[in-house]
């Protein structure tokens, strides 16, 4: 067996064997399996989004329908007239008059405190 010089530019097989024994790597199949398990555990984000897209859209539609139904129930029939163009309860008579009178409104009516 000839001794390799440090100047040699070819790999030294004896040194290689000693280094392999110094850094042994066992259970290669187990390592490969672990890596692949980790890869499968971190799917690409678009794939995850794709998987969730259909049930997500369906859930959003159901929630919207249920929310709309509940909102309709909460508001109650007394507000149903708003849809027919009636003024809401927060709108005062003065404003109603302003909107329905044919002529321009009086300045005092607009700037007044509403006591007249």
């Amino acid at each position, binding site marked *: 067996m000839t001794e390799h010089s440090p100047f040699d530019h070819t790999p030294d097989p004896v040194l290689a064997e*000693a280094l392999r*024994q110094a850094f042994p*790597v066992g259970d*290669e199949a187990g*390592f490969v399996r672990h890596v692949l398990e980790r*890869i499968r555990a971190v799917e690409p984000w678009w794939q995850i989004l794709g998987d969730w897209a259909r049930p997500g859209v369906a859930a959003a539609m159901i929630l919207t329908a249920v929310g709309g139904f509940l909102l309709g129930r909460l508001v109650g029939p007394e507000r149903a007239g708003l849809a027919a163009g009636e003024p809401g309860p927060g709108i005062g008579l003065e404003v109603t008059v302003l909107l329905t009178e044919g002529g321009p409104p009086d300045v005092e009516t607009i700037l007044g405190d509403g006591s007249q």
Partner: protein
Amino acid sequence: MRNDRVSEGEIAALAHAGDAEAFGELVARYAAQARRLARTILLDPDDADDAAQDGFLAAWRHLGRYDPGRPFGPWLLRIVANAAADRRRRRRVRQTEELSPAAATRSPGPAADADRSALRGAFAAALRELPERQRTAIVLFDVEGYSHAEIAAVLRVPEGTVRSDVFHARRALREPLAAWRGWKENEG
């Protein structure tokens, strides 16, 4: 295993398209190299395997950056070296690896085992004393068979630095290696 005529570039392209089996092929091809490199850097087998796994995962995520016209090994090992360095920075190495004897494949007797163990211990101690870059360079050159230029790409240093590192590492390991050679000759 796929036909060897299928290039690594083609396998990497399949893996990039989402074929986990194709990537598994690359992992199987480079698992030993990646683990040994990480171990050379971290000197701890558990940390090293974690770092090698991190490296493969990072490679999987960034396969789009791999140039199929170039060899896959240096590109992957560069990532694994980064992962090992990152792991070393993030947490202190739990314990320095006992580089000494793993189980022998055959057992010629207690005296021979003791000789082998002592020689391995001396070699391991010399190896541990090497600067990390020299240790890495000599493993990539003498064990994995990479060229100086490829190792330079992995370690991001000039090619001349790699030549110098390999030379100094070999010189530092000359004595324990000579004893190892003598023992191998006697045994053979």
